[in-house]
């Protein structure tokens, strides 16, 4: 294990970003991914460790003009219990409800879940369904610069993203869903929680007189990154959800995913679950 030479717990964003611009750092938020990775030797510390949990202004859920903004330090427990999200985007609360255990939810941050970039990251699926963007801050020419990246373009492989080493993910933002937005999340595992997803799935869109539009579909743990299901979306867009349309979507979903065999499940079983869950979630949508 490499040695930490410096530990910092800055209280403002600018000072954290200044250090990040100067050299290699490891960031820690809740530590629920980082600590096991270090202990198992899958990862080592950079010379500087920055604890970002004391930085002001990075936690909490707000609703600025027509949008919902979730600060990177917001915990999964806070998302699960949020009145604002229960009303505006219950699909996020649903995913939070199936996340780990209460103790982990109390520590785990949304920023950590996104930046860890696991193909099975549970909060990422509803955020893809909500068409979210992430905000990345860095230090340039003596000031803070911020860029936004669509979450669907953020992941490049298992544990890999387009975030540069000098960038801190400050928040995730999405347009407040329309009144007629319906979204569902489904995760598989032998238990309701404390389970890394073998397959997770989210479907959402606007439902008007039985017609489903602005449809977004996202899959977890069935490819190298969490991903949008383009074929499934195309099979559903603007359609009334008849049994034929649902069957076409199930076929399309099998085309969207590229699961593998691993210790948690076989490729065959994952494909099977994708089909079953796609149908199940679309049946749920029909019941509205």
């Amino acid at each position, binding site marked *: 294990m490499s040695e930490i030479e410096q*530990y910092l717990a800055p209280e403002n964003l600018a000072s954290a970003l200044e250090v990040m611009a100067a050299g290699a750092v490891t960031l820690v938020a809740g530590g629920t991914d980082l600590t096991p990775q270090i202990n198992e030797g899958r990862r080592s510390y950079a010379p500087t460790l920055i*604890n970002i949990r004391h930085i002001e202004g990075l936690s909490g859920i707000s609703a600025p003009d027509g949008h919902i903004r979730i600060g990177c330090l917001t915990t999964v427990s806070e998302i699960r219990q949020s009145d604002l999200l229960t009303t505006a985007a219950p699909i996020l609360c649903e995913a939070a409800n199936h996340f780990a255990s209460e103790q982990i939810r109390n520590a785990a941050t949304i920023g950590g879940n996104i930046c860890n970039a696991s193909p099975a990251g549970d909060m990422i699926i509803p955020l893809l369904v909500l068409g979210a963007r992430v905000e990345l801050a860095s230090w340039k020419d003596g000031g803070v610069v911020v860029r936004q990246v669509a979450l669907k373009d953020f992941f490049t492989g298992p544990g890999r993203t387009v975030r540069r080493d000098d960038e801190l993910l400050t928040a995730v933002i999405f347009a407040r869903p329309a009144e007629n937005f319906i979204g569902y999340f489904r995760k598989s595992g032998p238990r309701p*929680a404390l389970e890394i997803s073998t397959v997770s799935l989210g479907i959402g869109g606007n439902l008007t007189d039985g017609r489903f539009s602005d449809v977004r579909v996202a899959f977890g743990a069935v490819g190298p990154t969490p991903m949008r299901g383009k074929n499934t979306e195309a099979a559903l867009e603007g359609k009334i959800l008849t049994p034929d349309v649902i069957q076409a979507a199930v076929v399309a979903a099998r085309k969207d995913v590229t699961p593998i065999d691993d210790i948690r499940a076989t490729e065959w079983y994952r494909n099977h679950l994708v089909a079953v869950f796609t149908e199940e979630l679309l049946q749920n949508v029909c019941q509205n």
Partner: protein
Amino acid sequence: MSVKTELTFTLNGRPVTLEVPVEMTALALLRDGLDLKGTKYACGEGECGACTIEVDGVTVNSCLMMAVDLQGREVMTIEGLQTNNALHPMQQSFVDHGAVQCGFCMPGMIMQANYLVKKNPDLTREEMTRGLEGNVCRCTGYSKVLDAVAAVVGAKQEA
């Protein structure tokens, strides 16, 4: 040598200041640095809940938390539950219901149960089961644990 940093926090109501190695977990600090052996080390990876402590009013797995992250926080361990050498009502209820066998999981189980009841005095059995999902017990089979927690909820509602 790894770097150390000064750390100040409140532990079971008393202020503590000491130097800790930056890599140390909160669990190692409590057990080895401060000799509070009530909080248990079992899996070391967030799966079992034996290391559950309360930090700023919420429970976390101390095996996943860095000791340095305790800076400025209010920490409660199982040792902080007792008052005047008398068992806390949650501890007493576990004893009364025969909910303890080998006892290894119990400090974590009781910390989590106490937190759940504080957070929601009308806790249902279903909510208890969900709330204790992160606490594994290899002995009891959980039903007496739930009886013990339910009795505390019932007693609070009557009072």
